[in-house]
C-alpha cells in the first residue's frame, strides 16, 4: 500500500554528538584491532542478537574511472555478486540465499561500499562467499551484458530526470578538470565501451587492502572477527595507497537554466565549503543545521516551505568530499514561483553571512545535535557505518566522547565569525532544471 512521508529529505544530522543525556560512550566499546594478516579494523561486540553487520569502504570509487570508461566503478560494483570463483550468477545467488546473507555493493564518488548482514550461525560460510565475490568476480558474458543494459537504461532515464540533470550540471561546472565533474554513472558511450579486460583492471584497481576501511558490529568475538577479516581480504591485492590530493572546485557564480518540460523546477545551489579537518568545521556544521540541514528547525524550511508554501523539499548540507569541500543545497518549486524561492534563499544566505545566528538558534541547534547523538547508535548496521566514518576521517575512537563538547563549545562569536567566512551569497552557483520563471 502506498505511503507518503511528511518530510522527505536528507537525514538532518549526519554526525551528532552526545552530551547531558546518557550518551553512547558508555555503551559503545570500540576495539581497534589488527588481524593476524595485518588488516586494521574496528570492532564492537553486541551479542544480544545473533547477527553480524559488516561495513567496508574501498577508497577511490568513481573518482578513479578513466575518462573514456566513466561508470566503470559502478559497473564493477554491480557485478560483484553476479558470479564469483566457481559459481556463476545464479549459483552465487542461490548460495547467498541458502545462507540468508545480505550483501550490497555500491559505488560513489569517492569509494565502493560493501555492506553485509549475516546470521552469526552462518558466519563463516557467509564471509567466505563474500570474500569470493570481492576477490574473484567472474565477469561472465551474460551478467556483464545484463548489467550493462541496466546501467544504460538508468543513464537514459537520468537524461529526463531534473534532479539528475541538476546534479550533474552543477558538478560539471564546478569541476571542469577533475573527475568530480564527470558523471559517476557514466555516459551511453563510455558504458558501451567497457569490456571484460577493462572490468578486470578496474577491479584490481578499486578493491585493494591498502585503501580499505573496515567496521564490524555484532555477535562475534575478536578471534572470530580476526578470521573474518583475513578471509575477506585474502584474495585482494595490497595495492597502492591513494594519493592525497585536493581539487580546486570552482563553481561559477550565477544561474544556469536547463530547459526541461516539467511543471516543477529543481534547483541546486552552493559554493565552496570547509574541509573536515578545518578548525571551523564544527561551527560550520552547527550553522548548516540552522540554515538548511535541520529539517523543520531550519531557516530555509521556515521561510520557503512553512511561511510561503514554495516547496515540499528544501535543504542544505556540507559535502566534504575526499578531495574537495562543498556546501550545497536544493529546492523543488513550481516553475512560476522558482524565482521567488531563489530570492528567499539568497536572502537567507546573506542574512546569515552578515548577522550570524541568534543566541536562541545556536542554543536550539546545540540541544538537538548533542541530544540526538545516541540515535546514531541504536542498530548494529548504523554503528558499523559510523566506525568506517571515524576511521576514514581519522577522528579517533575517542571522538564519540569529545564531539559533544566541541559542539557545546561553539560560542556566538565563533558562529558569527565562521558564518562570515562560510557564506558567500555573491558566489552562489545555481543550476535550475525545468521551465522556471523569474530566475
Amino acid at each position: 500500500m502506498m505511503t507518503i512521508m511528511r518530510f522527505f529529505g536528507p537525514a538532518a544530522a549526519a554526525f551528532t554528538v552526545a552530551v547531558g543525556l546518557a550518551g553512547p560512550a558508555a555503551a559503545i566499546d570500540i576495539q581497534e584491532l589488527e588481524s593476524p594478516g595485518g588488516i586494521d579494523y574496528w570492532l564492537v561486540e553486541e551479542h544480544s542478537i545473533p547477527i553480524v553487520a559488516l561495513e567496508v569502504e574501498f577508497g577511490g570509487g568513481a573518482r578513479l574511472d578513466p575518462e573514456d570508461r566513466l561508470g566503470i566503478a559502478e559497473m564493477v560494483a554491480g557485478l560483484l555478486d553476479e558470479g564469483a570463483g566457481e559459481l556463476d550468477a545464479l549459483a552465487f545467488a542461490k548460495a547467498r540465499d541458502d545462507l540468508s546473507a545480505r550483501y550490497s555493493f555500491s559505488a560513489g564518488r569517492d569509494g565502493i561500499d560493501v555492506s553485509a548482514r549475516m546470521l552469526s550461525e552462518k558466519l563463516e560460510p557467509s564471509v567466505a562467499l563474500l570474500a569470493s565475490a570481492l576477490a574473484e568476480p567472474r565477469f561472465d558474458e551474460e551478467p556483464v551484458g545484463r548489467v550493462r543494459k541496466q546501467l544504460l537504461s538508468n543513464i537514459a532515464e537520468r537524461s529526463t530526470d531534473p534532479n539528475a540533470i541538476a546534479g550533474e550540471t552543477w558538478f560539471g561546472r564546478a569541476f571542469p578538470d577533475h573527475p568530480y565533474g564527470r558523471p559517476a554513472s557514466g555516459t551511453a558511450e563510455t558504458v558501451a565501451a567497457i569490456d571484460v579486460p577493462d572490468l578486470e583492471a578496474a577491479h584490481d584497481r578499486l578493491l585493494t587492502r591498502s585503501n580499505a576501511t573496515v567496521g564490524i558490529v555484532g555477535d562475534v568475538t575478536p578471534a572470530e572477527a580476526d578470521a573474518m577479516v583475513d578471509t575477506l581480504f585474502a584474495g585482494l591485492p595490497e595495492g597502492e595507497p591513494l594519493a592525497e590530493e585536493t581539487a580546486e572546485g570552482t563553481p561559477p557564480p550565477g544561474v544556469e537554466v536547463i530547459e526541461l518540460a516539467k511543471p516543477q523546477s529543481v534547483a541546486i545551489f552552493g559554493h565552496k565549503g570547509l574541509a573536515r579537518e578545518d578548525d571551523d568545521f564544527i561551527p560550520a556544521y552547527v550553522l548548516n543545521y540552522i540554515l538548511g540541514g535541520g529539517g523543520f528547525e531550519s531557516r530555509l524550511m521556515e521561510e520557503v516551505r512553512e511561511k510561503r508554501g514554495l516547496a515540499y523539499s528544501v535543504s542544505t548540507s556540507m559535502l566534504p568530499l575526499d578531495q574537495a569541500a562543498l556546501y550545497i543545497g536544493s529546492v523543488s518549486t513550481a516553475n512560476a514561483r522558482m524565482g521567488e524561492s531563489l530570492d528567499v534563499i539568497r536572502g537567507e544566505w546573506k542574512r546569515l553571512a552578515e548577522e550570524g545566528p541568534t543566541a536562541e538558534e545556536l542554543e536550539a541547534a546545540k540541544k538537538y545535535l548533542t541530544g540526538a547523538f545516541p540515535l546514531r547508535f541504536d542498530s548494529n548496521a548504523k554503528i558499523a557505518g559510523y566506525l568506517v566514518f571515524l576511521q576514514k576521517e581519522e577522528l579517533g575512537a575517542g571522538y564519540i566522547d569529545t564531539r559533544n563538547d566541541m559542539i557545546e563549545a561553539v560560542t556566538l562569536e565563533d558562529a558569527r565569525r565562521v558564518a562570515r567566512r562560510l557564506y558567500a551569497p555573491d558566489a552562489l552557483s545555481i543550476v535550475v532544471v525545468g521551465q522556471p520563471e523569474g530566475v
Partner: protein
Amino acid sequence: MRPTLTAARAAFAGLLAAAIAAPAARAEPPVTAFTLENGMEVVVIEDHRAPTVTQMVWYPVGAADEPWGKSGIAHFFEHLMFKGTDDLEPGEFSRTVAENGGQDNAFTSYDYTGYFQRVAADRLGLMMELEAERMQDLILNDEVVDTEREVILEERNQRYENDPGALLAEQMRAVLHLNHPYRVPVIGWRHEIEALTTQDAVEFYERYYAPDNAILIVAGDVTPDEVRRLAEEHYGPLEPSGRPPDARPENPPQRAARRVEYADPAVRQPYVVRDYVVPSWSAEDPGEAAALSVLDNVLGGGLTSMLAEELQIGQGVAISTGADYSAGREPGTFRLYAVPAPGVELDQLEEAMDAVLARLKEEGPDPELVERIKQNILAARIFQQDDQGQLAGMYGRGLATGQTVEDVQAWPGHVEDVTPEDVQAVAREWLRPERSVTGWLLREEAETAETDSEAG
C-alpha cells in the same frame, strides 16, 4: 548489488508490504500489550541495547476513509497536525522534539496515518504529552490551511507530475479498484486537493482522531510498567469518540481484464506492469496471505526468482523483473513487472511474463526455491530485531489493519507452513486476467501522438 532501474523503483517505491518480514519464533524481543480505559491500544517492544525509544501513534484511518470527492484530506490533515494547538504554537511540536535531541516524522497510507518520534528514552513522557495534546486540541484555520495546501501541491509535483511512472501507477490503481476507495491516490487528485477547505480538515479531525481510534507503539529502552504509567498519565484523560471508521465500499466481482497505456515524452525506459486484486491477510485464513508472500518471492524475488531466471538470464528479454504483494486491509494487490531489454517490444515481454506465470500454475514452483524463500523470510525477522523502528512499524501496521499482537507473532509460523502446492494454488486462484489491470509505460514521440507498441 546490481543497479536497479530508477523508473521501476520510483513507481513502486512506497509500496509497503504488510507484515511480510517474518522471523524465527526463537529470538523475538519481549512484547507486551494492553488497552487503556478509553480504548487506546498500547504495545510495548523492549530493546535495551541503546538508551533510545521510538514512540509511534497510529490512527487506523487513511486515504481509504476519505469522503468521496475529497481525496487527499487524510494526508493533508497529517501535515496540519504539526501546526498549532491550544498549548503549542505552529511548529512548536517539532521544535520541542528537536530540542530534546529527537527526530520526528509522520506518514499517511490507505489504511492508517502514523506519527512517530525517536528520542532518548528518558524523554518518552514528554513525547506522549505532545502527542496527546495534538490528538484533540489542534487549531485549524484558513491561514495555516492555505499555506500548507501549496506545500501539498508542490509535493504532488515532485512525486507525481514530475514522474511518468508515478502517473501511470495512479491511473492503474483507479482502474484496478472498480469501487473500493483504494482507487484514489493517497496524496489526492490535484483538482480535489485544490478544493479542500479548513472545514474539511476540521470534520476529518473530529470524526477520527480520538484515543479509541489510536494505537500506541513504544519500542526501545523501556519497560511495560513504565509505559503504562506514562500512557495513563498523558493519554488516559482523553475522551473516546466511540466511533470507529465506517465500513468501506467493496469492489464488485472482477470480471474483465483491463489495460492502461500511458505515453509521456519524458519516458526513456518503457516497461510493463500488471496488478491483480487478491486477498489480504485475514483472521479466517492467514495461511493464504503467507502463501501469497512466498509467491511474491517465487515470481519476483531476486535473480533466482522465476521471472528473473527466465526473462533476464534465460531469454534475455528483460533487464529487470519483480513482484510485490502489498496488503493492508482487504483487498490486497499483487504486482508483477518487467523492464524490456533493448529491442524487445512490450507485447513480446508481456507474453513471456504470462508464459512464466502459466508454467507456475501448471507445474508449481521449484520446492528448493520455496524452501530458500521461506528461510529468508524468517531470517529477515531476525535482522529486523536490529532496528527498533522497523519492529515498531511491523506491529503498528499489523494492528492498524485489523490484526492482534498474537497474529503478528504467528506470522512466521504461517510462512513456515507454506508448501509448494499452496503457492501453486494461490497463483491459480487469484492471478487471473479478469482480476487484473496491465499497464504499459511508453515514450510519447514528439512527431506523432499515436503509439502502437513501440518501445522507446
